């Protein structure tokens, strides 16, 4: 006990360097996002403030009562675009997360029921695609989904369709891409909780006469809820801000917030609007982020 305490003191000093780094390159930058998102004069190229138009309808209303200039009109339009982008981001993220859970759960469940030796192999097999580049994996799907790609060739050969289906630039392509990219993030936490579960519990429920679906629904699933929570958060939060997948696979008629942010920044060179978009995105994600932090902390305390 005492030696443990002595060990703790220098261990605390180890925190200094990473602490300073994270404050400098993670916390401080947010201050700049806030500043530039809120500032309307100094750095902004078009001299208006987008944040208040984004968050409060009150300002837009006042602007409408004032002289209806072309700028205000433009702002109201861009306002709409943003609202749609946020709504779409959330819809896409929720849909994709549900899909991921439905697809990932049976796989994680299957893994947890493998013999011990094979579980490790299965885990490596699930992790490995995560190591290969995100961009490459999306590109692989472009190969498959394009007009004369493999999927259409197979569908035509099986006479399931009479002419090639348009896959690229559709929402289904985007969902395929998201599920494909995030599947390991869903499977691994699910597997971690399912593998730790005592098989005796399921057996007991079965011995007491519960049919398999009831065993699953009343015993297995409730016990796996921590894993479900971790998997859902690990997928949901990054998907809301996703840029690459919708950009390459979905159509360009409805954008997600990550795309509008990118567009404002790189194409329109409008940094204040991009910063404001980032702030709103952060606010939207605040609750899931805090939940995630709590979960992470609890898990680490548990491990200690």
């Amino acid at each position, binding site marked *: 006990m005492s*030696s*443990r305490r002595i*060990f703790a003191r220098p*261990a*605390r000093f*180890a*925190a200094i360097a*990473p*602490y300073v*780094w994270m*404050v400098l390159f*993670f916390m*401080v*930058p*947010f201050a*700049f996002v806030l500043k*530039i998102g809120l500032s309307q004069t100094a750095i902004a190229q078009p001299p208006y403030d987008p944040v208040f138009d984004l968050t409060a309808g009150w300002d837009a209303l006042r602007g409408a009562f004032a002289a209806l200039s072309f700028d205000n009109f433009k702002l109201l339009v861009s306002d709409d675009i943003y609202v749609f982008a946020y709504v779409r981001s959330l819809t896409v993220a929720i849909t994709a997360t549900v899909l991921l859970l439905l697809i990932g759960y*049976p796989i994680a469940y*299957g893994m947890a*029921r493998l013999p011990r030796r094979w*579980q490790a192999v*299965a885990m*490596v097999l*699930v992790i490995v*695609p995560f*190591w290969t*580049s*995100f*961009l*490459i994996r999306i*590109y*692989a799907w*472009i*190969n498959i989904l*394009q007009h*004369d*790609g493999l999927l259409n*060739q197979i569908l035509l050969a099986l006479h399931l369709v009479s002419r090639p289906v348009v896959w690229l630039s559709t929402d289904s392509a985007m969902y395929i891409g998201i599920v*494909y990219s995030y599947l*390991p993030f869903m*499977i*691994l936490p699910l*597997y971690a909780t399912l*593998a730790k579960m005592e*098989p005796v519990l*399921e*057996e007991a429920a*079965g011995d007491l006469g519960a049919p398999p679906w009831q*065993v699953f629904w009343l015993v297995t699933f409730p016990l796996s809820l921590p894993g479900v929570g971790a998997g859902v958060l*690990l997928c949901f*939060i*990054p998907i809301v801000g996703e*840029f690459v997948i919708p950009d390459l696979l979905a159509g360009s008629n409805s954008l997600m917030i*990550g795309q509008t*942010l990118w567009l404002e920044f790189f194409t329109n060179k409008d940094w204040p609007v991009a910063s404001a978009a980032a702030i709103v*995105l952060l606010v939207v994600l605040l609750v899931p982020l805090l939940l995630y932090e709590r979960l*992470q*902390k609890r898990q*680490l305390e548990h*491990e200690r």
Partner: protein
Amino acid sequence: MRRITRLSRFNIASLALGLAFLYLPILILVIYSFNASRLVTVWGGWSLRWYHEFFNDRAMIEAAWMSLRVAVSSATIATLLGTLAAVALSRGERFRGRTLFSGMLYAPLVMPEVITGLSLLLLFVALNAERGFWTVTIAHTTLTMCFVAVVVQSRLGSLDRSLEEAAMDLGCDPVRAFISVTLPLIAPAIAAGWMLAFTLSLDDLVIASFTTGPGSATLPIRIYSEVRLGVKPEINAICTLVIALIAVVIVIASLASKLSSSQGESAAPL
């Protein structure tokens, strides 16, 4: 006794389908990179033509070199800092600012990349830093440090602490006990953390796009701008090379982890 914990047919089917879903697209990509035909969908026999094309593409090669340099340096810094952070969190007991520290450390794990990228860029602009190799390296270090910390911390958590305590009871000071007892035991996890940071850096498009300057594009940035214009066989070849490089890295990492833990723990969400 009825045993429902046995592997059912449904379990096997979902496993097989899941793994096929994960691996087939990559396999198809690799096979088509050896396709002689310019049309990506028509098979024209085996050929190394597109690899040849890649090695003659100066801009691509330069981007690949830039990516490699960034990946190696950012992974190294991230491993150093991430390991320190993991030690502080798992051995430091309670200290002031611990909650903020772990919060900051693990936030980039899920933080949308557009936000991290934009905020870092604004910092670099405010600091008037010249954007290029170093800014991307700093950005990638910030992104990957948490992954290293997670891997190392889960190893530290599963370690038998009586070993450290024994070393200190035998007269080692804490630093010496750490270096001669703890460090060798967590070395494989540190190596795995480095590899993970390396591949993540090699992979990143969004943060690099924000933080790099003109004339210093990384490989993903180049690939992205090509992919936006459509499928090109040369890209298949580049992707296959990257996959091969990462495969080598994974093999080394798994050998390293086999050297370390016989206890099959650590199901940290990588």
